[in-house]
């Protein structure tokens, strides 16, 4: 049996669940660090520093897992290499050597970057990043070559988890049902606590202590038996309900979940609640993998400016809306070229405190038909950064010259935010595969 632990679900995830995974014993700790937007953040880092461009919490995870890796208990797989897996691998090796850890074999995988193929693929010159979602193959190669830590760039989340199963069990990569089972395992584990009670829409309040998260474990047999569970004594829960919510998460067409290694049919999946935080996954069917890789291209999309418009009862919403209209009118008067506006209104008791909801009250007091306060939020998008910033300066007039009972606007007025467009594209496999490289170095 092979035990795989899901140690990370995004760049910035809490790491409190990793210790219990390692203590409970996992053969592989797999950390998924790259959401769609993450590569854009890392591309900005790299523009400032050639050695950056990987997720900065990678050393934290590496340090946590290192003792188990050295002891030969656990291998570590992550796509934390982001936009710069070579530098990430180097940083890992340096970190190990600095701790006096020698003899650990570290692999890096490159080849997901599509910018070298910009002309053939029609990727615009101003693209912040363009990357293909690689499959399990290069990670399997790294493991076959003895790597104990594997750092990649953009690899499809689920394929990070499929790779060790192919390596351990010698599954044929055109055994579509096995590939689909491995991708199902990966899909269930790739968001850390989201399969073990996190974001659960049922009675989440009975999940136990959030500060002791139970990150997920998949117990996998060579013949295809899989059980999803979590370390004993941790919070959260693994049930039919929590697992089916994660199974459906972001998969679009459940009959055809597209992954670089297989087209998985999630309508075929059988989930069986065994009790005691154990759910069996079986009967997964797969079909041949898509003919192309998925690519993602990210380009600049202007700048947003933003203000908060916080007003107290009475007439809170009317005031917040009047304030938003004031700013819209000022933009017109000043000739600021705004491409798009967006407004929102929210609030409960930031301003009235105990006069709105008395301390310890079990139910809200009977109120009028208007909200006790409204936080307006007005956002606009401009092509140019300076245009987006100009309007922010205008709302100061609302402090003394607008509707009454406006709260202070906060400690800092927000600076414009650079916006980005993401567009998926189909990429020929041969083009990408020719550039995929696995290199292994020992600490």
């Amino acid at each position: 049996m092979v035990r795989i632990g899901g140690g990370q679900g995004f760049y910035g995830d809490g790491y409190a669940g990793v210790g219990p995974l390692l203590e409970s014993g996992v053969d592989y700790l797999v950390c998924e660090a790259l959401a769609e937007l993450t590569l854009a953040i890392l591309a900005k880092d790299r523009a400032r520093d050639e050695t950056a461009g990987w997720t900065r919490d990678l050393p934290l995870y590496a340090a946590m897992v290192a003792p188990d890796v050295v002891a030969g208990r656990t291998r570590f797989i992550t796509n934390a290499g982001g936009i710069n897996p070579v530098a990430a691998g180097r940083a890992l090796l340096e970190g190990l050597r600095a701790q006096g850890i020698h003899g650990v074999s570290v692999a890096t995988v490159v080849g997901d970057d599509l910018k070298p193929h910009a002309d053939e693929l029609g990727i615009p010159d101003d693209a912040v990043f363009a990357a293909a979602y690689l499959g399990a193959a290069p990670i399997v190669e790294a493991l076959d070559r003895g790597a104990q830590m594997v750092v990649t760039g953009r690899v499809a989340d689920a394929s990070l988890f499929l790779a060790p199963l192919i390596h351990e069990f010698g599954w044929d990569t055109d055994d579509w049902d096995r590939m689909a089972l491995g991708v199902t395992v990966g899909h269930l584990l790739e968001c850390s606590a989201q399969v073990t009670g996190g974001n659960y829409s049922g009675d989440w309040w009975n999940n136990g202590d959030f500060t002791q998260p139970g990150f997920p474990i998949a117990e996998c047999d060579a013949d295809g038996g899989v059980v999803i569970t979590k370390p004993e004594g941790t919070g959260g829960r693994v049930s039919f309900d929590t697992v089916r919510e994660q199974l459906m998460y972001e998969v679009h067409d459940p009959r055809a979940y597209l992954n670089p290694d297989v087209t998985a049919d999630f309508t075929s999946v059988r989930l069986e609640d065994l009790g005691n935080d154990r759910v069996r996954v079986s009967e997964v069917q797969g079909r041949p993998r898509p003919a192309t890789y998925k690519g993602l291209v990210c380009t600049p999309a202007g700048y947003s400016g933003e203000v908060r418009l916080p007003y107290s009862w009475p007439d809170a919403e009317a005031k917040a809306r009047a304030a938003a209209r004031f700013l819209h009118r000022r933009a017109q008067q000043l000739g600021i070229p705004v491409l798009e506006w967006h407004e929102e209104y929210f609030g409960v008791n930031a301003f009235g405190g105990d006069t709105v909801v008395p301390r310890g009250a079990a139910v809200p007091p009977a109120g009028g038909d208007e909200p006790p306060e409204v936080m307006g939020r007005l956002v606009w998008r401009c092509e140019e950064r300076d245009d987006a910033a100009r309007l922010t300066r205008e709302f100061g007039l609302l402090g003394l010259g607008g509707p009454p009972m406006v709260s202070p606007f906060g400690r800092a007025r927000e600076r414009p935010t650079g916006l980005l467009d993401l567009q998926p594209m189909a990429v020929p496999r041969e083009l990408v595969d020719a550039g995929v490289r696995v290199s292994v170095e020992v600490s």
Partner: protein
Amino acid sequence: MPKVQLREVCGVRSGDKGDVSDLTLFMDDQEAYEAVCDAVTTEKVAAHFGEMVKGPVERHEVPRIMALKFVMHEALGGGGPRSLRSDNLGKTLGGALLRLEVDLPESVVANSARAGRRAPLDRTPVDQAPRSADA
């Protein structure tokens, strides 16, 4: 048949890819699954979200796990890093879907463990709450 909000019989999970919002409803028994599949049409969901969703809405049935999925295109104001919305990833849109009112047989609501179930609300200030070890 009484009109009820989906909240009373369904769980939900929200996700996104680019400008696509991906919402799944979960029912707890076969009768509820079939009733919700009958009641919650693509047209109803599209009308419920109105201007928030600019593109087409797809619908997928997953009977083995009693799930009903809606994939809504051009639904996030341009997608995560481009959207001007606070919730640029549409993580809360599942809640917005649970607000939808539909006609469901009385027995479906009567048999649902979710009907009338509410999270306990404790307004004790955080620094006065019992320590979790004692809770």
